[in-house]
């Protein structure tokens, strides 16, 4: 049977227009903007539209009308089958804070692997520097780390208390943006089946290990702890968490997890990754503030005991947050 397209459009046009009006309301103002009657009407019109499209495809060839109906059906399909929009509330924020910790715990194996890799890099960097001091420029190619630790300590301790005035905010912003970039890069390199992420984590371990051994061998352990701990107690965990994210991507790419398709596996991890990178960004913003406004001041301006105590408390807080925060919600989820 061949369809008279002109007559067909004339007969059905009113329904299509009504459907498009309701669809517009749905797209602009969300599902709650429609009354129950309108929702029922919309669903009925959606089904009629599908039937019209099938009829048109089977019994006539009129590309403009077919494309028009397809676009209407596609928009309606997205609205009917897509998930609901997230609404802002204070509860959402508190849930988000707890969910970050839960995501870290849920993927603890990836984090454990990252920490092991980082430590391995640290041991490698430390041993390399201890056994071959000439390798210093290769292990940590940064101007401010190449000199003698003793000279650096003397210089830092003799600095005027106002030496950072007029540059603290800029330095802090540079640290925040640079470290967040590195963290995003470490996480997204998980797409290389985790190879890129592992290289970055291992390399960061090498640098830290070499710096630590360099200062310990020079007898400047207290300065080193007071210098690195206040911001490092947040910054290093943040980079390790970024590595964790990278390994989550790699795991989804490499392991089938039963019969799950790649698309389903990636869909399964996306929410976790967003929580992870959001939390990491917050940690790195804080680390940038601490490094610029606190870590750059040394004895006699700030006693090392204060700086170390601050760093230890902060490190314990990070551990406590990751290990215990949001446990209650986790148990409730498990019961359900």
């Amino acid at each position, binding site marked *: 049977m061949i369809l008279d397209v002109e007559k067909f459009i004339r007969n059905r046009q009113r329904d299509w227009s009504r459907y498009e009006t309701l669809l517009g309301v749905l797209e602009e103002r969300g599902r709650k903007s429609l009354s129950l009657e309108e929702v029922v009407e919309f669903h009925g019109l959606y089904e009629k539209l599908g039937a019209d499209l099938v009829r048109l495809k089977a019994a006539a060839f009129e590309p403009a009308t077919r494309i028009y109906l397809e676009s209407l059906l596609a928009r309606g399909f997205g609205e009917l089958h897509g998930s609901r929009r*997230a609404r802002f509330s204070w509860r959402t924020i508190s849930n988000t804070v707890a969910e970050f910790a839960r995501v870290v715990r849920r993927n603890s194996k990836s984090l454990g692997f990252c920490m092991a890799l980082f430590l391995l890099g640290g041991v490698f960097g430390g041993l390399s520097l201890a056994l071959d001091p000439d390798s210093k420029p290769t292990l940590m190619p940064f101007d401010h780390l190449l000199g003698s630790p003793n000279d650096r300590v003397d210089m830092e301790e003799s600095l005027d208390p106002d030496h950072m005035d007029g540059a603290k905010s800029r330095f802090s912003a540079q640290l925040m943006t640079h470290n967040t970039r590195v963290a995003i890069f470490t996480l997204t390199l998980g797409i290389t089946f985790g190879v890129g992420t592992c290289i970055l984590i291992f390399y960061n371990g090498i640098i830290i290990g070499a710096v630590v051994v360099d200062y310990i061998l020079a007898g400047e352990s207290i300065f080193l702890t007071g210098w690195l701990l206040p911001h490092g107690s947040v910054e290093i965990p943040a980079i390790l968490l970024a590595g964790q994210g990278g390994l989550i991507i790699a795991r989804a790419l490499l392991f089938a997890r039963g019969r799950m398709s790649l698309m389903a596996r990636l869909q399964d991890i996306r929410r976790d990754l*967003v929580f992870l990178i959001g939390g990491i960004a917050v940690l790195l913003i804080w680390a940038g503030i601490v490094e610029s406004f606190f870590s750059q001041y040394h004895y006699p301006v700030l006693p090392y005991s204060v700086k170390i105590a601050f760093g230890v408390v902060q490190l314990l807080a990070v551990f406590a947050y990751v290990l215990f925060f949001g446990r209650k919600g986790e148990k409730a989820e498990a019961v359900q």
Partner: protein
Amino acid sequence: MNQPRFNALEIETPEGITFEYLLASPLVRCMALAIDYLTIATLFLIISALIEILGWISVDIATAFYIIFYFALSIGYFLILEFGWKGKTIGKKLFNLKVMDSRGFRLRLDQVVMRNLMRFVDSLPLFYCLGGVVSLINRRSQRLGDIIAGTVVVRAPDREIPKLSEISDTEYNSFSEHPRMEALLRERVSPIQAKIALQALQRRDSLEPTARIKLFADLAAHFKAVVVFPGDSADILTDEQYVKNCVESIFRGAK
């Protein structure tokens, strides 16, 4: 017969109805991206001028704002627009493109975040080389960010109900004087043959003159083989007019 096109994304609803999205080519996406970066640069210049005013109070704070704003804008531009503007950015809007879930669903926040964070890798080593190469190879023209986020970029022009005047034809049809022959024609011509003839008529102005003459000669010969209209109404017609009359007769009588 209804095989999806190589550059189309076919989606089947639970009711068994299929529809297609035309995928955006990497070249068009590249042009849209260039527009987006121009927009970001313009926004940056405008806001920089405002930040300079802040410099009168403190150069240090103004520089910090400058650094953070540049970073936030380069990531936030795509994030905010794609999530808040149904998968569109200014560049995409200009080229009638939009980002969507590869299953046809509404775009989710986690998808927008992931596809935009992956730009860090897609842009390696320079100018989106890696992402460009991957999208050229990928069946759905997805860059790495799209693969991780489960998204595609499609062409999304605004569609309106076709005007009836574009479809109907009010010219006199000499075949209408032979209703029995018209009925025979409708009975013997399959919907596929009718579709081909109708499409040929709709696209005739875009055909090469020689191709147009040959195409309508072939179609007229086919219809003449199916039903022979009496000489006085058929002999004086050109091949194209003959096909037009046949198509009009078929569709006028359709239910």
